[in-house]
């Protein structure tokens, strides 16, 4: 088996190694997630230490899953941003070590674009991506030679909002899945709904929800209202991007896109617009090494030239910074 590509992901909580074949077959998908102590958020240094310990084993396991020796790989890829600096550097170092030890080409790629490109493996060809995770909340699409951010959060990420509320409500990290399990309707408590053009904001919603929590409102009812309101905002922004661009495919990505209610809402919205909705498996929605490997493969085989700038982490690597030459 030759031509397989290994991808390393370490932008935030998740350290991961994934391997794909050139035709998109997933040969390995290994992950280890850093979980902060109850009641506290992620500390970049602690997460990076976790990743530094976890990555060598993850790479070894991934190679074993794929039945490959390192020298049989065609390319090593890592996510060079956006993300937390110490975490990014840990992943870059692991990728460099592997590539240099075995004389393999090395490529650093954009984490957000990887979430989009993995959706193409699901059958989409020119989608709008609704990317909802802890730190990233974006609506992305391809236009005029680049991936463009059509809309995004103006303050906090949707996942951060869920996690922060969960933390205040005494739930363990990550709060999102716990809130999903608790949510109980159909009675809808009114919370701020903030869509500005193609952008959205979640801090007003968080503040109002925390106030209601302090006032003694039952958690299941609040969890329901938060989901209904925040997810509708995200779907509306995605819908506006679809209307604006005329694109006919929607791809979901990011940890929050694992939420069943979000998936249901997105599918309903897409259906009403005659848009095809692609929801990758949960394993590929959350941060993973497979999508990093796949984007690296697509770029590399599309003739993307690896320059010195590609082997450097960039905490604020914007989705629209790199010219897309591989499409």
């Amino acid at each position, binding site marked *: 088996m030759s031509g397989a590509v290994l991808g390393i992901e370490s932008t935030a909580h998740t350290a991961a190694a994934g391997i794909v074949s050139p035709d998109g077959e997933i040969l390995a998908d290994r992950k280890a997630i850093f979980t902060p102590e109850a009641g506290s958020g992620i500390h970049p240094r602690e997460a990076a230490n976790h990743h530094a310990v976890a990555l060598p084993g993850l790479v070894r396991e991934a190679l074993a899953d794929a039945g490959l020796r390192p020298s049989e790989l065609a390319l090593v890829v890592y996510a060079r941003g956006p993300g937390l600096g110490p975490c990014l550097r840990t992943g870059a170092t692991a990728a460099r070590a592997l590539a240099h030890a075995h004389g393999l080409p090395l490529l650093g790629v954009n984490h957000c674009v990887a979430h989009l490109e993995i959706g193409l493996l699901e059958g989409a060809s020119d989608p709008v991506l609704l990317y909802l995770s802890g730190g990233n909340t974006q609506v992305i699409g391809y236009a005029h030679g680049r991936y463009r951010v*059509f809309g995004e959060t103006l303050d906090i990420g949707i996942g951060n909002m869920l996690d922060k509320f969960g933390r205040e409500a005494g739930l363990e990290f990550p709060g999102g899945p716990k809130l999903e399990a608790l949510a109980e309707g159909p009675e809808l408590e009114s919370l701020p709904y903030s869509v500005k053009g193609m952008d959205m904001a979640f801090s007003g919603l968080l503040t109002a929800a925390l106030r209601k929590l302090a006032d003694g409102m039952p958690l299941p009812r609040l969890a329901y209202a938060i989901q209904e309101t925040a997810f509708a905002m995200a779907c509306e922004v995605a819908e506006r991007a679809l209307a*604006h661009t005329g694109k006919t495919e929607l791809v979901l990505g990011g940890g929050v896109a694992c939420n069943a209610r979000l998936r249901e809402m997105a599918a309903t919205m897409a259906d009403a617009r005659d848009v095809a909705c692609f929801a990758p498996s949960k394993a590929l929605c959350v941060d993973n090494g497979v999508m990093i490997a796949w984007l690296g493969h697509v770029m590399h085989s599309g003739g993307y030239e690896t320059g010195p700038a590609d082997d450097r982490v960039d905490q604020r690597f914007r989705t629209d910074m790199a010219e897309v030459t591989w499409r």
Partner: protein
Amino acid sequence: MALAQPGPLEHRGAEAVVTAVEWHGRPAVVKHRNRRSYRHPDLETRLVVERLRAEARLLERAAEAGLPVPALYAVDPAAATLVMARLPGETLERALRAPDGARWLPQLGELLARIHAAGIVHGDPTTSNFIAADGEPGANAGLAVIDFGLGAASDDDEQRATDLRVMLESLEAHHPELTAREPLLAAYGAWDGAAGVLERLAALEQRGRYNLVRG
């Protein structure tokens, strides 16, 4: 509603369906906010009524301030419908694609400043929400602004800066070849209330679009 026969579909947006009609002999459009089945029905009802009322109010406020907006003919919250004058011209989105499309940019910056000076934030100032009409100055020539459905009456520089951000993003996404930022902001900056807004814009871009990583 005393509508004549509905005419051709003008536009199916994310929010509403706009249909060309005759309104007592005048060219008009009916804007119908369609319900979103993905949203909770209570939330949907709240948003439809909020946005319809806001849009009608802002259209009147804008008209009073002498801004180029379509005249409002009728409002029906129960049917989620507005009837407005149909403006001549084409969307700015399309007009900007003409060889000399960039000539609209200073006018656009100036119009955004006039909207803000009138105490209005548009909420969705994309290139699809401006109508460009060629012809003799005066009459109906020049730029007009439509769709105040996400707007608000506000003097808040933060919200004004968000308007600018939405506009810039729309221009950069759809017309990257124009390098629209400089001419747009230069024209906007000629307004004596612009300085505070442009400061907020810089701050917004720091913490929003250009700062994707937050702990």
